């Protein structure tokens, strides 16, 4: 009897303690070190309205996407999406896809796709990882802009490769650091985007 009561007490205590604990989860770092990233960027046909925001979830083309707190390195200013594609009766979930809408001129969209293997000594067209990443990037963009007047302009696709995931993480950190010329810490200075290109087709 005593044992039962003691056990029940311990169980209630454990439940309460765990229930009350603050769990501040740090960004996941569970992608294996050999993962690389392809980064695609494309200008948009027009600049999005001030109130425009990328959708948090959606579906279409036998695929689903949802934004959230997902595994993979943190990239400031990028939203992480989980994309699921239908294959017969099954749904395949991709690794997180990173998307950033740049609203300064030229308005553009950035999509970073993790790749299991980066290619060396091959053209991009020969590289299976690149083709697969490009397919996912296209699908993600189609889904994101499905119900909006904004579309990536054909022929403006740029791509960069990061052989390992920490290279991408480093690029992310440097990108935002460059925007803030931190010469007199902690006072930051904005490096305003150059007015180089118009987005109107």
């Amino acid at each position, binding site marked *: *009897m*005593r044992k039962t*009561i*003691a056990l*029940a*007490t311990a169980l*209630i*205590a454990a439940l*309460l*303690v765990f*229930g*009350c604990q*603050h*769990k*501040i*989860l*740090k*960004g*996941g770092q569970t992608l294996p070190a050999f993962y690389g990233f392809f980064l695609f960027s494309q200008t948009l046909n027009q*600049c999005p*309205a*001030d*109130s425009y*925001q*990328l959708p*948090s979830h959606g579906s279409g083309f036998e695929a689903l996407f949802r*934004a*959230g*707190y997902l595994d993979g390195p*943190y990239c*400031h*200013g990028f*939203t*992480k999406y989980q994309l699921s594609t239908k294959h017969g009766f099954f749904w395949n979930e991709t690794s997180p896809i990173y998307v950033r809408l*740049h*609203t*300064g*001129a030229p308005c553009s969209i950035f999509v970073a796709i993790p790749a299991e293997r980066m290619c060396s000594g091959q053209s991009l067209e020969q590289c299976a990882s690149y083709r697969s990443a490009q397919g996912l990037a296209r699908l993600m963009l189609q889904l994101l802009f499905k119900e909006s007047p904004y579309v990536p302009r054909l022929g403006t696709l740029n791509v960069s490769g990061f052989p390992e995931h920490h290279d991408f993480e480093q690029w992310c*950190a440097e990108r*935002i*650091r460059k*925007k*803030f010329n931190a010469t*007199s*810490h*902690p*006072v*930051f*200075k*904005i490096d*305003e*985007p150059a007015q180089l290109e118009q987005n109107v087709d």
Partner: protein
Amino acid sequence: MRLRHLIALLFILPFLLADSCVKQVFIHFEYELDRCPPRGFELPENVHFAGWELHAVEGKPYCHGYLRYELDEEEKAESSLTDEPTRGAVVYAKLVFGEKCKLDLISSLSCNSRETLEECQKRMPYQGAFRAKMGTARGYTELVAERILIGQKFTPKFPARQNTTIGRAGELEAWCAKQ
């Protein structure tokens, strides 16, 4: 330990623990800006102030469209009695461009589960050194608003144009999804 002690403990324990059980309550603040930031402007990844650092980091609850910052001490002071000050201190931030430009901040309060929000706000829910420096949610969030845009050509106007209590983590996620 006698049986009656165990039985008494069984009944008292939930109440004892409930008092130390901390819940996070989120409050949304909207600050007007004296000038609007150029499109493409981004909030920084790190902000330093008064020995503290706000750094952007992912976590739960997720709030779509907002950057999530956690508060930490730059260097742990030896006199620091406890880690309490940083517990659960999270801020979500978003800049809205255009004519109605504004800085949106969502601040978290750490309240005891049995106190009302009013009681919690009065008590100054940031504890220890953090409490001494920052005080109330309103004061703390104004400090963050000021520091997150420090050195820029646009500054937030105080007090906040609007503040709304969102509620707990689940309610925050639902609120963010609606925006």
